[in-house]
């Protein structure tokens, strides 16, 4: 690696992958609870497992983003990190806070946890994805501010590239929009309205900037295409993301009590949200085709191409499927949403982190790339996880279509639980695809320890 301080990325990457394993294990538990309702009850009820599954996802992605940033920023700014010590300290703060939160979720009932952590001082808990207790939320803010201070200072004292600027905008946006998690008005419409400012503007807004910036960085490094060309693409993608994504928030405002024009605004702008993702796919393939060198890390290039395609399919196509208000009227909150959520998160954010880790870890270990053997194994893990995710998405989509039909469209609509029983077959198939995904993830981890010593040093 070019700068010593880039090494702080390593613990972040390791923690991210560790939490990712946890997320998948809880995913498997959840998947089983869909068909065997009392599995692990009362130790881990469905709602707790779901909370752990989604919270672990968020936390590991954040670890990945921070690790990737710490790796990337010194190289972009061409200077050492402002304070590697602060970065390491924040790593432990975040890890301990994250772990304690998960232990809290599992050890005591949620209501007790809320009481113990001072939720009555400032009520922020009990909302989907923002279930974290107050101290954890405050911890996230402290960690995020220290992290942003650290990387911003680094960029300020070094070179300011377009890629680093886009990344910083994305990260600052991430921190700013998280502040809405502290705003919890009594009016349920307002509550939901601003809740989306965190949730939607993260995943369909600023996170896409982080994604684009990571992708651009790895493509520059692995393809040797001119920075100027790559930055031009990045600008276009970022603009398209912001045009479509910001007003696209409206596609969550169809049925929560907001004025009717949101059905038009939300439908029209969110229908455009696939475009930046399509841009990313074309971008990745175009750059790899125009490559000026053969980078030894073929696995990282595969992840880069993969994230382009899967983000477009998962976030773009599967998002578009149910984004128009007249369609969403029927599909809202069904398994169609779950199908979209799974492939979008994997394709966009899990894969871009795996790409970054795949690119950076060998270099952090003192070599340009892992051995051929190890890369073959990693590519297997890529295909296993990706194909498994395609299956999960397809099975959930099938389940969703059936659910919409049985429960909402048919002349004799069935109650929710009865409809659920009718689609159990798809849940079983989804569970097996989940097992396949776990095997892929285990292979991914194994690949880093396997025959890695042959390639010459970076």
């Amino acid at each position, binding site marked *: 690696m070019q700068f010593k301080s880039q090494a702080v990325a390593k613990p972040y990457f390791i923690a991210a992958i560790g939490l990712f394993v946890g997320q998948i294990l809880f995913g498997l538990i959840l998947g089983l609870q869909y068909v065997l309702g009392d599995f692990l009850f009362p130790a881990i009820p469905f709602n707790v497992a779901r909370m752990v599954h989604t919270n672990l996802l968020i936390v590991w992605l954040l670890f990945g983003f921070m690790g990737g940033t710490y790796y990337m920023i010194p190289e972009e700014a061409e200077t050492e990190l402002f304070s590697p010590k602060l970065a390491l300290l924040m790593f432990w703060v975040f890890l301990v806070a994250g772990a304690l939160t998960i232990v809290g979720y599992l050890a005591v009932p949620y209501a007790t946890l809320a009481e113990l952590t001072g939720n009555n001082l400032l009520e922020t808990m009990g909302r989907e994805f923002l279930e974290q207790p107050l101290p954890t939320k405050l911890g996230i803010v402290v960690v995020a501010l220290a992290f942003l201070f650290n990387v911003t200072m680094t960029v300020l004292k070094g070179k300011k590239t377009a890629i680093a600027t886009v990344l910083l905008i994305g990260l600052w946006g991430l921190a700013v929009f998280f502040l809405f998690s502290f705003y919890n008005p009594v009016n349920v419409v307002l509550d939901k309205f601003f809740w989306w400012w965190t949730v939607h503007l993260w995943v369909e807004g600023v996170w896409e900037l982080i994604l684009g910036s990571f992708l651009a960085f790895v493509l520059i490094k692995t393809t040797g295409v001119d920075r100027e060309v790559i930055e031009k693409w990045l*600008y*276009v993608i970022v603009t398209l993301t912001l045009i479509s994504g910001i007003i696209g928030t409206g596609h969550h405002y169809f049925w929560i009590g907001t004025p009717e*024009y949101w059905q038009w*605004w939300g439908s*029209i702008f969110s*229908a*455009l949200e696939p*475009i930046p993702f399509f*841009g990313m796919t074309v971008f990745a393939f175009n750059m790899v085709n125009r490559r000026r060198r053969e980078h030894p890390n073929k696995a990282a290039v595969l992840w880069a191409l993969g994230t382009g395609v899967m983000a477009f399919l998962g976030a773009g196509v599967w998002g578009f499927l149910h984004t128009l208000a007249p369609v969403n009227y029927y599909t809202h909150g069904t398994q169609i949403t779950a199908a979209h959520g799974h492939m979008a998160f994997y394709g966009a954010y899990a894969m871009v982190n795996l790409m970054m880790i795949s690119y950076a870890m060998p270099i952090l270990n003192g070599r340009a790339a892992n051995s051929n053997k190890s890369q073959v194994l990693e590519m297997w893990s890529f295909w296993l996880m990706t194909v498994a995710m395609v299956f999960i998405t397809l099975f959930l989509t099938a389940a969703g279509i059936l659910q919409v039909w049985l429960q909402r469209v048919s002349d004799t609509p069935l109650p929710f639980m009865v409809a659920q029983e009718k689609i159990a077959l798809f849940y079983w198939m989804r569970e097996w695809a989940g097992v396949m995904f776990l095997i892929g993830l285990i292979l991914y981890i194994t690949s880093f320890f396997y025959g890695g010593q042959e390639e010459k040093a970076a």
Partner: protein
Amino acid sequence: MCAMTTAALIPPETPQKRLPGDLAIWFFILAEMLAFAVFFASYAFARARNVEMFNLYQQTLDRNAGALNTFLLITGSWFVVRAVQAAHRNDQKAIPRNILLGFLCGGGFLVVKVFEYAAKFGAGISMSTNTFYMFYISLTFFHFMHVILGMVILTILWVQARKGVYGSHDAHGLESGAAYWHMVDLLWIILFPLVYVMR
């Protein structure tokens, strides 16, 4: 063999064929135009389901203001074309002058529009009044924001032009900004008849 047939099918492009401005701005323009295309089509099909209401409220719009604004944008575009042509013949004085005139046309558009909005909002009309007004306000306001962005771009071009950045050696940036400004014009050329006149 295969290459030869392809070559025979597509006549070779003359070397002068080039896209003015930057490729990136054209992608951006296309995306913006797609957004408006969806909006225009939504308007037209929403109208088809509610013709009487749309026809009734369309008559409350200020057609004169709309037409005046069309003149302003067309003329603003024309000035910017003249700025680009001035750059190609290296007429350093004419470049910033024409950009400024284009900018003033944009400013005129905004003034007319603000008066128009003031009259409508003053009458208590809002996005929630009915579907027609929802579209009228959304479409024109979305376009309004694009005029502002276009004027920001013209300001940058003006500053650069005064520094003498553009000329026959390099008009790349000027052409890129000009293309965006023309798009703002093009969108209004569809919007005006669609929302103000066609019935």
